[in-house]
């Protein structure tokens, strides 16, 4: 009889404990900040609500080399905070086994407003985007099963997955949702330009003149506030002999999409050189030279630029002054976006 009592007592205790641990799963919600005058985000936060624990886990994953085959290539090795999460001063990025990527790493910013990903728009949701670089043999060279197996050996991750999602199980879906949560916090909306728009600062003369030219000659494809219309355009960049990258045509199969690439955002453009989908433009000056002189239009080149752009040297100087006002140093140095334990992303994160 006594035995039975003890057993019953233990069962009750275990039940209470289990329900208590379940009950204690209460991640702290984080409100997503929408800058003033910006549209509603495209990302569906209801299906992946931001929480402190989820963002923390996503950041840990973003900076973890174990997501790559040899441990050397975290997401951050090609997406560096000080370069607005592009690869600093690299036309192409370095990947597994001394390989090079085939495109220039884009800056990662304001992703909640982005509908399609990659320079050809082939990926239709932020939550599945990281699978491409993780599994690409020229990037992280890994497969998802191995990533999961490696993370499972780390007790700290078990705790973090439990804190973010309620249990210790590690799977593709949770990894991707956590990465999305972190990447969604990469919001850049505090450059000098933004402060001017909010009435908290004013342009100096060349910046103002540059802004006026920009609105006349650039903003059809690079409209505010994102400085891109997210469309795909052929701007008369002939195909690279070696890469043979036809851009959007590879996704849609349409000849008319030949050599079309996504219009990049110009936010933080000063820190994200080189430019162009394959990084062929060394500096902003090369981009201007392309638009006014070097472009090789073909029959699918965008009608807005196919006759080239008239740009004087003065205008180029003023446009450059304006574009530099799009640098958001509070974003580039935000300690919340740096790896755990660092104030800003340390330079050694880029060791290639």
């Amino acid at each position: 009889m006594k035995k039975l009592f003890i057993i019953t007592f233990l069962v009750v205790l275990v039940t209470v404990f289990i329900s208590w641990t379940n009950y204690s799963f209460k991640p702290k919600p984080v409100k997503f900040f929408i800058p003033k005058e910006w549209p509603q985000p495209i990302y569906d936060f209801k299906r992946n609500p931001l929480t402190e624990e989820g963002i923390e886990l996503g950041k840990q994953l973003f900076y973890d080399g174990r997501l790559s085959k040899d441990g050397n290539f975290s997401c951050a090795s090609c997406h560096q905070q000080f370069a607005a999460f592009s690869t600093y001063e690299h036309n192409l990025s370095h990947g597994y086994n001394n390989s090079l990527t085939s495109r220039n790493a884009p800056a990662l910013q304001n992703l909640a407003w982005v509908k399609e990903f990659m320079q050809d728009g082939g990926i239709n949701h932020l939550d599945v985007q990281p699978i491409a670089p993780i599994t690409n043999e020229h990037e992280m060279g890994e497969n998802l099963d191995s990533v999961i197996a490696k993370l499972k050996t780390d007790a700290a991750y078990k705790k973090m997955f439990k804190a973010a999602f309620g249990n210790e199980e590690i799977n593709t879906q949770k990894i991707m949702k956590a990465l999305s949560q972190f990447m969604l916090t990469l919001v850049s909306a505090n450059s000098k330009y933004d402060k001017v728009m909010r009435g908290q600062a004013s342009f100096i003369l060349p910046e103002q003149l540059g802004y006026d030219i920009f609105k006349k000659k650039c903003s059809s494809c690079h409209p505010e506030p994102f400085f891109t219309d997210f469309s795909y355009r052929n701007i008369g960049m002939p195909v690279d002999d070696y890469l043979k990258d036809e851009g959007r045509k590879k996704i849609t199969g349409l000849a008319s999409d030949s050599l079309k690439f996504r219009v990049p955002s110009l936010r933080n453009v000063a820190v994200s050189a080189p430019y162009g989908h394959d990084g062929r433009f060394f500096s902003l000056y090369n981009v201007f030279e392309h638009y006014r002189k070097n472009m090789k239009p073909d029959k699918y080149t965008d009608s807005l630029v196919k006759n080239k752009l008239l740009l004087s040297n003065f205008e180029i100087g003023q446009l450059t002054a304006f574009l530099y006002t799009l640098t958001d140093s509070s974003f580039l140095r935000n300690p919340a976006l740096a790896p755990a334990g660092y104030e800003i992303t340390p330079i050694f994160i880029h060791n290639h």
Partner: protein
Amino acid sequence: MNKTINLFLALSFSLLTFGTFAQQPFTIYFNHKVGNEVLQLMERSYSNSFGEPFIVNRFRYYVSNIHVTDINNKKTVIDQYYLIDEADSNSKTIKLSVPNNRIKQIEFALGVDSIKNVSGVQTGNLDPAKGMFWTWNTGYVFAKLEGQSDSSHIASHYFTYHIGGYKPNENAIRKINFSIMNREWSNTFSINVDLLKWFDGNLKLKINESPVCHVPGKLAMQIADNYSQMFSIQQ
């Protein structure tokens, strides 16, 4: 006294409910064949109707959106995604629970509906880690047939068909539909799946001419039309 009546009422109500919604197990087996022969991965060499010899290394496909209709026209929809894989014999049996009536019709989709192709990262059988997912051009591979053939002129004589496409102009989802009234009733149901139909249908798919299909589009839709004919009921 009151308590007893309540208990009695509750019991009879639950019995009644159970009677109305009584379920029976219903099992579907997929038997993979090449013509009349049983499929054996990597072991045996087969030949398609153009005389091209081939071996099969991998054969996988998604079965989803299963609808079962009983003789009272009551439809049961099974909102599950099954990945049938020749290399995993358990996957070739689908166990369902359906209303306790004679079933007259069964329908399913070969593929993954567009919603799941555009709603971000999924889990379970739709986990991208299952290898049935295009990472660079988002979308599920609905069916995979891979092997080697002397007729193939690509590296290692491979032929690889990865068929998918959910966009309206690339739609490779195919509906499969069986009436099962003309056979003796049994709640297990075997479907023969003949791989030769991949090659020989409206499209004459010669390994020699097309050893590879890895993107959604016209060829993928034609191959999907071909393989939508690969299912038949085992009598």
